[in-house]
């Protein structure tokens, strides 16, 4: 018979437990991660009594948590997604509000800086207005630094957050490993019954972990789980954990990396991390923080480059050249900080790289990585990190510094032994905003004026209107001496369409420039650039005409012979730079025969592309003397006859002559005079056509063939009729020793024995620089001249003819070799021919060299002088012959604001990537951060909705509902009461039974 009592008792037990479970559910209603539990009640095995099966009560089979694995997994994924986006939004939002706030953004700083500049431009001489510029510049510098500081501080916070998060991940991983062990133990000892609370705890730990980082969970054997993160890197395997670590980035020291140690190997998994706060932080760093710092740096560098460059082209209120406005952003320490070697590079750590900003308009906001790819130690490539593009692939030489141009900066390998496998991280723009610093200190230093000023002579008759000039390059010889223009320029119109550009150092004697700019073309009706505009061409000048050893005798009985022009044969080579290989390539040689007229050589050279050659021949004649007729001569008495290029200059002509323009000197003086020769040459129609002209200053006559034709002279006359012949190139003696106490004069003696040494040097193109020293006491001026001559002759200076030394009224010493040319009284004559000087203008990348080294055409490796002056002036209108325009240093220019206007215009220039102004660049940066923040906001919101939904789903299944539990409480209580009644009935039955026996 079934045992009613034990059935009742089983009912009591069952309901007691059920009530306990319900109570437990109610108590844990607010416990996070708790899943409600249900009792699993089963009926006991029936007993076979009397041929029938009779039930024997109930029992609790199991207490189970109500739980849906799929929903929990989904919740974990949604948690990861939301945390990632939430953390991105939170961090980006902070940068977002920093950028556009007028109190903290860059824009107001830029506006105030340029606004203050404009006020100074209006009143350039006002020190208070300039002071405001200095303070506002400092304000702008502070803005850059403050914003940069906020951003880099954020980076530091971010590094700290990463440390904390990784710490938490490790702690949670450990907790999961421990729980795995406990669950294993609990389930095996409970023979399959689930340790519900432990499982809940583990699920909670997993959920917390997925808030931090995206995880993948795999159940191992029904009890243990394995957790991996990122791309399958295991964090927890059963009961063991592999800890994550935060290390200083191997490439970029300011960016921490996440490292997982697996089997003793460190694995950088920063890029593999996805999901969770950690991934949100990394995304923030990559998408918002790093670009913001770099873009701000790029704006700063753009501002610095343009302001500094323009400012240096100006002069300050005291006429001093503009200093750099901001401190040098390419200073060695700053440039070296832009490149960092990888920690893993081969030891010793001896490599030194530097990054110099060369063109802010081409800068990107990316960082770069240099990789020495091997197999050798010289090959490397440079990767632009933003887009992974390979921007350079080449090899270094060991010739340091070895430089390479990339995206607006120069990568310079400065020292060290590079090894295959080396890596370097380049950050061209990152410190741009941090390192900006004001260089100017005083308001006077602001360079609002332009160093040059033009001046039209008031004697001008034409209507030419000259610009005030613009400076493009201050690194030319013209601006070498502060406060001066070297040399001042005189632009003199020789006709309405031609002009000469002259050196106006001595306004009484303007002289040609070197390289000369004579006979330039002017086109009325358009804007003409009066000075060279091409900064890349260079000029080479030949050594010029030579004085022969002696004049050539022409025997009257023999056929006419030609005197050589003194120019040696030579081979000229034009070399050009191959733009692809970077190697100089020679073009075919020119063979120049001996005595080739300069005009011919120039013509040949001009046929070459990129070459323009001109020639000019100059002869100077002085000290004309008249000879005497020797009465015992077998030859008849005859007047002197001087011939130039076959045209007799000393003829006496009838009144109706057609050879000379009138008036001309019709009487031939004896001796000949410079004025006579000059006037005859200038009046001759043939010479006019040939471009041969002469200038006399009364003492000497200079004869010039402007196209470089040879000038051939022939003199026939009495014994002694003659002159001194030279190429007119004065050589200056430059004092190098002590200054002479009194002026030298060609009329007075001089005592060089007191004081001294009185040393001088002179430079002879094609030869050398020679030094002499004047010593001794000399009674007369002639003695002094002789002393100088003796000293010059004592050097190795090689020349022909006789040295003619001259001391001018200011005590300057010049000399030149001159050849005395005389008639000898017979019918024969003497001939001398002068060759010309060749000027070659070469385009960029071309050079000229000459061989053999004994040739007197050019120096072997002649110096290539720049033609460009560094500044330009333009002119419109119609000038008249004789009109003069000066270009001078702009002295006392306190009211000039031209450079100020150019500085102010920088706010309108498209500096950033060549298509954005500074403030547009900043605007784009704000927009980018704003877009990312907005996107993160929207995404976070939708992720939140998903998360809420899956949370609700989980709660819906596993959450405790108090009303439900209350109902159960009533239900189980009723059950319990009923079971108790069963026992009571059992007792009654028992009593009844006992009563029968009583």
């Amino acid at each position, binding site marked *: 018979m079934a045992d009613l009592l034990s059935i009742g008792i089983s009912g009591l037990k069952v309901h007691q437990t059920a009530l306990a479970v319900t109570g437990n559910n109610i108590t844990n209603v607010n416990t996070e991660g708790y899943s409600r539990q249900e009792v699993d009640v089963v009926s006991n095995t029936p007993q076979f009594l009397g041929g029938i099966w009779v039930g024997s009560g109930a029992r609790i089979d199991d207490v189970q948590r109500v739980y849906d694995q799929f929903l929990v997994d989904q919740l974990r994924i949604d948690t990861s997604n939301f945390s990632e986006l939430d953390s991105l939004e939170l961090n980006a939002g902070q940068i977002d509000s920093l950028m556009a706030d007028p109190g903290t953004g860059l824009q107001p700083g830029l506006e105030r800086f340029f606004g203050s500049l404009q006020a100074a431009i209006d009143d350039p*001489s006002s020190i208070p207005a300039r002071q405001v510029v200095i303070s506002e510049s400092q304000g702008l510098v502070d803005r850059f630094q403050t914003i940069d500081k906020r951003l880099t501080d954020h980076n530091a916070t971010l590094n700290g957050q990463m440390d904390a998060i990784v710490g938490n991940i490790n702690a949670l991983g450990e907790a999961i490993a421990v729980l795995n062990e406990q669950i294993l133990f609990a389930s095996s000892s409970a023979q399959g019954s689930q340790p519900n609370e432990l499982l809940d705890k583990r699920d909670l730990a997993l959920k917390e972990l997925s808030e931090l980082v995206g995880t993948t969970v795999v159940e191992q054997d029904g009890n243990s789980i394995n957790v991996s993160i990122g791309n399958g890197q295991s964090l927890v395997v059963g009961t063991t954990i592999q800890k994550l670590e935060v290390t200083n980035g191997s490439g970029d020291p300011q960016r921490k990396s996440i490292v997982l140690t697996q089997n003793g190997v460190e694995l950088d998994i920063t890029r593999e991390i996805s999901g969770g706060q950690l991934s949100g932080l990394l995304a923030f760093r990559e998408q918002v923080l790093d670009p913001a710092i770099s873009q701000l740096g790029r704006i700063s560098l753009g501002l610095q480059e343009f302001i500094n460059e323009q400012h240096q082209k100006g002069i300050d209120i005291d006429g001093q050249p503009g200093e750099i406005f901001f401190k040098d952003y390419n200073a060695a320490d700053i440039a070296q900080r832009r490149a960092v070697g990888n920690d893993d590079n081969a030891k010793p750590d001896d490599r030194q790289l530097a990054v110099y900003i060369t063109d802010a308009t081409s800068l990107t906001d990316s960082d770069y990585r240099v990789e020495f790819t091997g197999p050798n130690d010289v090959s490397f490539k440079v990767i632009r990190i933003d887009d992974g593009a390979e921007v350079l692939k080449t090899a270094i030489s060991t010739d340091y510094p070895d430089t390479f141009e990339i995206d607006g900066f120069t990568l310079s390998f400065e020292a060290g032994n590079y090894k295959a496998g080396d890596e370097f991280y380049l950050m061209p723009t990152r410190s741009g905003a941090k390192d900006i610093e004001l260089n100017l200190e005083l308001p006077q230093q602001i360079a609002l004026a332009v160093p040059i000023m033009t001046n*039209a002579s008031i004697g001008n008759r034409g209507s030419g209107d000259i610009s005030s000039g613009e400076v493009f390059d201050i690194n030319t010889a013209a601006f070498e001496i502060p406060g001066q223009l070297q040399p001042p320029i005189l632009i003199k119109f020789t006709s309405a369409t031609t002009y000469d550009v002259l050196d106006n150092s001595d306004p009484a004697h303007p002289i040609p420039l070197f390289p000369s700019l004579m006979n330039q073309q002017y086109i009325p009706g358009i804007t003409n650039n009066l000075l060279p505009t091409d900064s890349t061409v260079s000029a080479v000048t030949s050594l010029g005409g030579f004085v022969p050893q002696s004049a050539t005798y022409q025997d009257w009985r023999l056929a006419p012979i030609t005197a050589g022009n003194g120019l040696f044969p030579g081979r000229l080579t034009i070399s050009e730079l191959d733009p692809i290989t970077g190697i100089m390539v020679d073009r075919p040689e020119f063979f120049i025969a001996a005595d080739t007229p300069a005009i011919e050589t120039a013509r040949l050279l001009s046929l070459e592309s990129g070459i323009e050659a001109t020639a000019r021949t100059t002869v100077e004649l002085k000290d004309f003397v008249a000879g005497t007729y020797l009465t015992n001569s077998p030859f008849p008495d005859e007047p002197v006859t001087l011939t130039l290029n076959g045209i007799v200059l000393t003829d006496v002509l009838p009144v109706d002559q057609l050879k000379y323009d009138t008036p001309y000197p019709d009487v031939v003086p004896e001796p000949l005079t410079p004025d006579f020769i000059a006037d005859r040459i200038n009046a001759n129609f043939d010479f006019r056509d040939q471009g041969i002209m002469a200038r006399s200053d009364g003492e000497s006559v200079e004869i010039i063939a402007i196209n470089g034709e040879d000038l051939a002279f022939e003199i026939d006359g009495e014994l002694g009729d003659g002159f001194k012949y030279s190429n007119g190139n004065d050589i200056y003696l430059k004092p190098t020793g002590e200054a002479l106490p009194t*002026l030298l004069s060609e009329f007075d003696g001089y005592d060089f024995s007191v004081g001294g040494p009185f040393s001088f040097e002179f430079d002879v193109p094609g030869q050398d620089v020679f030094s002499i020293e004047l010593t001794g006491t000399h009674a007369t001026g002639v003695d002094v001249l002789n002393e100088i001559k003796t000293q010059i002759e004592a050097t190795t200076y090689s020349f022909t003819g006789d040295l003619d030394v001259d001391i001018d009224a200011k005590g300057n010493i010049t000399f030149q070799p001159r050849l005395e040319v005389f008639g000898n009284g017979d019918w024969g004559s003497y001939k001398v021919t002068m060759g010309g000087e060749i000027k070659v203008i070469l385009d960029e990348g071309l050079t000229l060299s000459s061989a053999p080294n004994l040739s007197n055409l050019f120096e072997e490796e002649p110096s290539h002088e720049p033609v460009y002056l560094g500044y330009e002036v333009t002119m419109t209108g119609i000038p008249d012959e004789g009109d003069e325009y000066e270009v001078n240093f702009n002295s006392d220019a*306190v009211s000039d604001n031209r450079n100020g206007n150019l500085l102010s215009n920088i706010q309108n220039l498209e500096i950033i990537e060549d298509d954005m102004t500074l*403030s547009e660049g900043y605007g784009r940066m704000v927009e980018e951060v704003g877009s990312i923040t907005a996107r993160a906001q929207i995404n976070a919101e939708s992720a939140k909705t998903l998360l809420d939904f899956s949370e609700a789903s989980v709660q819906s299944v596993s959450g405790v509902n108090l009303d439900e539990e209350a109902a159960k409480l009533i239900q189980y209580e009723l059950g319990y009461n009923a079971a108790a009644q069963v026992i009571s009935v059992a007792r009654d039955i028992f009593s009844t039974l006992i009563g029968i026996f009583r």
Partner: protein
Amino acid sequence: MRISSMQQFQQGVNGIIKNQEIVNRSQQQISSGKSILTPADDPIASTRILQLQQDIALREQYADNLIAAKNHQNHEEVALEAVIENLQKIRTLTIQSGNGSTTKDDRGFIAAEIEERLKSVVDLLNTRDASNVYIFSGYKGEVKPFEERAGGGYSFEGDQGQRELQISANASVKVNDSGEDLFVNIPSVNNTFFTQDNSENIGTGVINVGYIRDQDELDSFYPEDFYIEFNSDNELTPPQENYSVRRRSDDRAVDGLSTIPFSAGADITFAGVSVKVSGKPEPGDTFIINSSEKQSVTDTIQMLVEGLREFDDSVAGGDQINEMVSATLTNIDSSITKISTTRSEIGARLNSIESVDNFQQDLELVSQEALSTLQDLDFAEAVSRLSLESFLLEASQQTYSKVNSLSLFNYL
């Protein structure tokens, strides 16, 4: 669907928080008056706002420049008007002096009066502006443009610089005129000349303005320039200071003027002109005599003054006076014409400043409006939105307490 108690509470709280966020945002918008609080609210509009702000800031710079430019023009205009008045008085006096009935004494008095007038003209030419800068000295704002010369007359010390101010993104206006263009570069009725010391000189010699001794002779040499060069004393025996007069075109000495003994302050006469070098020039020093078709207004008047004092009452003197007076009148008229032309230029500049100003103001208004549309809040909309949002918040709060007060436990 089954709802857990925790969920029920949480959802209620979440609803309240969300509504609070919305109310708070509207509240911020209303208290700041801006519809966009951070760039993330509307990245594109934010960039546009930055651009507009920059544009407005730039226009404000231009607006300041416009006012400054106007002031500069007005200042110059006033000075020029006064110069013309004075020149006209001098002109009247000049006519008086040419009246055949004046004696040398009368002319002396007139000369003295003209000289006084000239001084006030020069004072006007040396006008400074509010920031103490000489308005007619070009870029050399702190250099007095018209300085009295040692040998009489005035020399121009400024330069031809013209300052420009940016008054709009693509227009700038000149804010000064150089005294050289205004008062020096004046066409002269006859060919004339001006002198200058070579800046390279080491001695103390200075050259005076000089005068034309023989117009015909000067005309025959025109446009040749000359220079006086001092030679070594030893060029003469016994050694003595001496000079040569040379042509600038080819350095050739003028006939008969090579190594001439020098005495300070004596007339050096050639090519129809007469100049004096005083002080002590050193060998190598040069003084330049440039021929010109132009004469400064100060030189014109100074030469008149000298002439009026010099020429006597003879018939020949009378002819010279007539010639001089008529030349001077023409030259003064040229001056007045030149100044009047410049005044009308100033007027034109003022006009263009005015029109740029109007245009700028219109544009600024447009920018301001655009900015306002983008960033300013529509208060009516925002306030009604806020009241709806507050109502929703209130509702969610009430629902929360209502719903959560329902529990089976209340009946146990």
